[in-house]
């Protein structure tokens, strides 16, 4: 249905979309996820030319959108858009919001349209609000009306720009239900959302957008269970991390421990975890002999609470955690007692110790 080739968008010097190429087929439900400011909304808005791309090509059912001769408004009539801020026509009643498009644009008869509109409202559960004005509705209700308004135009594809971002949790579910229903009925949709669970449940495909491109894409399982790329992972697991580099043996242990403590406070780790980490930091470093190039990294996954401590030391292969390597094993024992698991590998000339810290 939609073909996108080398889409790019600049705002002056700011490059928002670098180079995007993809296809969206009929019946697909695509969720677009990613950190804020990476161009998700911009991408979506380019699809119906609310934003004009700086470069590239978009074909809707074979019709080039960017061609001057194309009747863009006509094309748009086949695409519905649901906005974060609802954007209902405030001078018209709910019913009229639904009927104005079909009557004025599709030239449908008024009576017929009214009937259809009322049915749609019933579908979204707001039939009784037909003669109210938008300012009389709650956020969730408005959004449902917005969806119904789109449906009234009998579109081929629906674009959702963060449909629930402006709603409080209680209302989010009512809107998501409506969207789910539409999915069941086979509507092609592209949804930009932050609702991960929802995206995971209903999508046929997920785009993870980052750095102005579709960084990674795949089925929900692929993306959510098994993200391949670094940033995807980080995003999915909601990983937070702390890194520290040591270059001499006169490093400042206390500063390091301070940083660790701050990190723990920030991510609201328990006292136990915090203490363990402090200890681990010290002990691991005691095991080292060459301090010229050490990288420490602490990763915490918000998703599953995993706390990982990593120490990478440049030098000859040597596993300090092995029995008998260190001078004494008190340190070793201390370390092991506080970790769920310990691991070692030698990679790229570096000895890497991987410890998973015991949590609650």
């Amino acid at each position, binding site marked *: 249905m939609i073909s996108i080739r080398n889409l790019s968008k600049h705002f002056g010097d700011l490059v928002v979309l670098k180079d995007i190429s993809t296809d969206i087929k009929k019946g697909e439900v695509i969720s677009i996820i990613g950190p804020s400011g990476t161009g998700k909304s911009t991408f979506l808005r380019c699809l119906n030319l609310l934003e004009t791309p700086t470069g590239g090509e978009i074909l809707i059912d074979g019709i080039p959108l960017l061609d001057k001769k194309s009747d863009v*408004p*006509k094309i748009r009539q086949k695409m519905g858009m649901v906005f974060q801020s609802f954007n209902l026509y405030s*001078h018209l009643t709910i019913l009229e919001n639904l009927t104005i498009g079909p009557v004025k644009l599709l030239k449908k008869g008024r009576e017929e349209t009214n009937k259809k509109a009322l049915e749609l409202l019933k579908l979204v559960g707001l039939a009784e609000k037909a003669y109210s004005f938008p300012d009389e509705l709650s956020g969730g209700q408005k959004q449902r009306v917005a969806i119904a308004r789109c449906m009234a135009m009998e579109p081929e594809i629906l674009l959702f720009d963060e449909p629930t971002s402006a709603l409080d949790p209680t209302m989010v579910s009512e809107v998501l239900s409506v969207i789910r229903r539409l999915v069941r009925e086979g509507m092609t949709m592209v949804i930009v959302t932050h609702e991960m669970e929802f995206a995971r449940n209903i999508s046929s495909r997920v785009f993870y957008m980052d750095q102005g491109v579709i960084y990674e894409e795949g089925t929900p399982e692929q993306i959510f269970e098994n993200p391949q790329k670094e940033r995807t992972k980080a995003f999915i697991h909601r990983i937070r991390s702390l890194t520290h580099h040591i270059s001499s043996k006169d490093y400042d242990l206390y500063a390091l421990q301070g940083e660790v403590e701050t990190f723990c406070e920030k991510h609201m780790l328990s006292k136990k975890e915090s203490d363990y980490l402090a200890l681990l930091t010290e002990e691991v470093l005691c095991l080292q002999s060459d301090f010229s190039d050490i990288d420490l990294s602490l990763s915490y996954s918000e998703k599953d609470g995993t706390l990982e401590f990593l120490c990478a030391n440049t030098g000859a292969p040597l596993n300090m955690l092995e029995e008998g390597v260190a001078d004494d094993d008190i340190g070793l024992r201390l370390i092991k007692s506080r970790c769920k698991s310990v691991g070692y590998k030698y990679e790229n000339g570096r000895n890497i110790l991987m410890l998973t810290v015991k949590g609650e």
Partner: protein
Amino acid sequence: MKKTYLQCFIIAVTLILFGCNDKDVRITALSMLEGGKTFAVPTGTAADQFVLQRFPDAKLEYYNSVLDCALAVKGGKAVAAVYDKPVLLNIAGKNEGLAVLQEMLVDDNYGFAVQLKDVELKNKIDEVLEELKANGTYEDMSKRWFPAKGEPAAMPVIELAGENGVLRFGTASVTEPMSFVDGNRNIVGFDIEFASYVAKKLGKRLEITNMEFGAMLPALISGKVDMIGAGLSITEERAKSVLFSKSYYLSGLAAIVKTDGVSEEKAEGLNLSSIDDIRNKRIGVLLGSVHDAYATKNYPDAEIMQYQSISDLLLAINSGKADAVFFDHSGLNDILSINKKLDILASNVFSVQVGAGFNKDNDELREKFNSFLKEIKANGIYEQMIERWMDKSTSEISEMPEIKSMKTNGTLKVGIVSDLGLPFTIIRAGNLSGFDIELTKRFSAYIAKEFMPVDLPFGSMLASLSTNKIDMVTCSLMISEERKKQIDFSDSYYESGVSVIARKSNIAHSSASKLTNLDDLAEKKIGIFSGTVHDAFLTKKYPKASVSRFESTADLILSVSTGKTDAVMLDLITARILLKRNDELAILCDDALDTPLGVGFNKKNHALRDEFNGFLKEIRADGTYGAMHKRWLVDDPEKAIMPPFNNPSSDKKLVVAVSVEDLPYVAFMNGNYVGFDIEMVRLFAERRNYNLEIITMEFPSLIAALAAGKADMITDGISISKERAEQIDFSDSYAEFKTAVVVPKTSMAKYSGEKKTETKLSFWKKISNSFYNNIIREQRYLLIIEGLKITVFISIFAALVGTILGGLVCFMRMSKKKALSAFARLYISILRGTPVLVLLMIIYYIVFASVNINPVLVAIFAFGLNFAAYVSEMFRTSIDSVDNGQKEAGIAGGFTKVQTFVYIIMPQALRHVLPVYKGEFVSLVKMTSIVGYIAVQDLTKASDIIRSRTFDAFFPLIMAAVIYLMIAWLLTWALDYVEVSVDPKRKKIKRAEEVNQ
């Protein structure tokens, strides 16, 4: 700061309360009129000559009639009025506050005058005189016409057969009781009665022609009358051009003065007018001074009071302990500027020499001083000193020059009087200064001694010198024989005059704050018609007057009635009409400015102008002009009836622009244009076969209209002036414009004695009167209705044009294309920054200058342009106020930009813009009130026209305001209805019903 303000305020109030000094002193003898007094004399009489003969330094004020002169005296503007005694007696008999001085200025003989060659008539007159005297009639007449008190008796009826023709008698019936107008508006008097007898003797009828006094002799000489008489004095001058009868009445010129001079301050009874008057008063002098001796010698009857010091002396005269004081003339400026209550009574009564005093034994010092004196006189230093001290006014205080001195030979003790005053000796900033001080310092340096001043009272000066306590004395010591007995004098180093000063309240002095002629207005507020010749006149003649310019006569009158101006200048005839209705106003004078009136033509249109001039000559020749002149400019123009007019239906069109101001030139009565000018142009059109069209506009726009070709001729009592003649051509003068100066009666000296008799009308009666005058009378309501139609028409169409244009401008303003947006912004800023009136006139007079366009269209266009600028911004704001998201939703939903605007943005913007749009619309309606400037007769102009007839400011203005208010309400209500019907919430219920059916 506050304290300073308070002080200033108190001083100001005090000054205002006590600043005006209006002092009149009773004159009881002819001699008291000496000394540069002000005399009031009638113009055209011989009185002025006689006054100047007797009082060479008298100041003369000329008035139209002897009655005005007497009133001037009463009002304090003149000290005395001089005229024939019988006339003055008559006036005095009727006026409590006036009295005739016994002593006459000069004796006078009255005679009748006839033409030089008419010896026969003269002889007849003399005969009649003899007869009357013989048969006792003369005595009867005298008694009858010159009663001691009260009014002259009635004129006896004298039968005149008139078989031999008519005796034409010229007289000036303002000289009661010789010739005057009685209560029944008949001309009567001694002279009239006498003339009747002469006529009877000749068997002729008596035809009396009344004229100005000054016109009598010319009338006789030119043969318009046979005999003149009105208390006419026989003088040699006159006898050169006319033949006098024998004197028939011995009269004389007397002076009439005020009898009860009440001054602002308490009447002191002293009326010092010359030095002689102090001979029996209290004279203050400085003890031991020359004045002392002089006064004692010359005024033995006076009480000489001697004071130790100048300050004591001044205190005495200020507090009234002395009546007059002798003082050095050179020091007077200074003294008088400080002592405001004092003034000079007589200046330089005598002069004395001033010298330095020395001990009789100290010849050496004295010789040295004399040499010194010679030296400084030779080398110019003396000149400098004189210039420095003697010739400067007190405001420029001189500085003592630096004088180097050796001081090797010891000290020079000099006796001085430190408070002598300028120019001789004063103390300033702790230092001695003055002529005497400089002189002495220089002398000390000359003899290389140190100057040591010794301050002594004047009286002790000579004693100290004699006993060698001091070496010399310089204190403006006057050289006198008496003193020479005690001390020796140097050569005189200065000659000083001595003057006499007295308190101002005692000196014969007159001033008044009432107005008697135009000069009194020199520094007042004067109102005039804007764009008239009065402007230039006032600027030239009275540059200090503050001038206010008004657009209409009604405004002028309003301003002077309410005190916003002190006087106003306008056409005499109009003024007379006005005064009929405005009791509290009067004409101050009507001879300020006479200008000829002309009709204006475009400079290029010589042909039309010449044609018009030819026409003028024609009507003057055939008497039509005379009749018109009489109808409009002599008789009461309000009663004039316009002759019928057939507007020729020719191809030649004549557009005449007028400004409907007032009679007698152009006015609007009973739905028609009337007036001298109107009649004149109509005649012109008729006789030269033009189709006449008259358009009206504001007076200042007339010239512009001519220059722009909107009118072929302009007329409305336009004065021919050089400035105007630069822009347009004038026809020959067709009438004279006399300017009258109108002031409130209360500020005129003439009426200062009158009491205001106001008939109090009830409030409602006043309103109903106003209503009748302003609306019903002369069908004025038709004017209003016509004006109303125009106003509404212009308003609605201008609003339409403006709204559409405004939408266009708004679109351009909001466009992304820089060119369109910039243009729109420029348009908006220009139109918003230009006053609508200026815009209107530019479009009418410049843009459409030579185009024959209906001014109503111009008005719609101009107002539309202006309206557009404002509403475009309103539209922009209201559009912006609709949130952008809805626009996006529309676009995303497949609406084109235009559809989005029409279906989604506009309905919402409309709701936002209507409230402010309403206001702008009402504003537009009110703005249309200025279209009068381009000759459109709207509601405001209609009310102006009515005002120009009724001179009633209140009613027409209030009425116009009420009508505008009603229009505004109606329009607001209409727009309110639109606003409501656009409100979607109203539709909700309706639609629900619709769908559910």
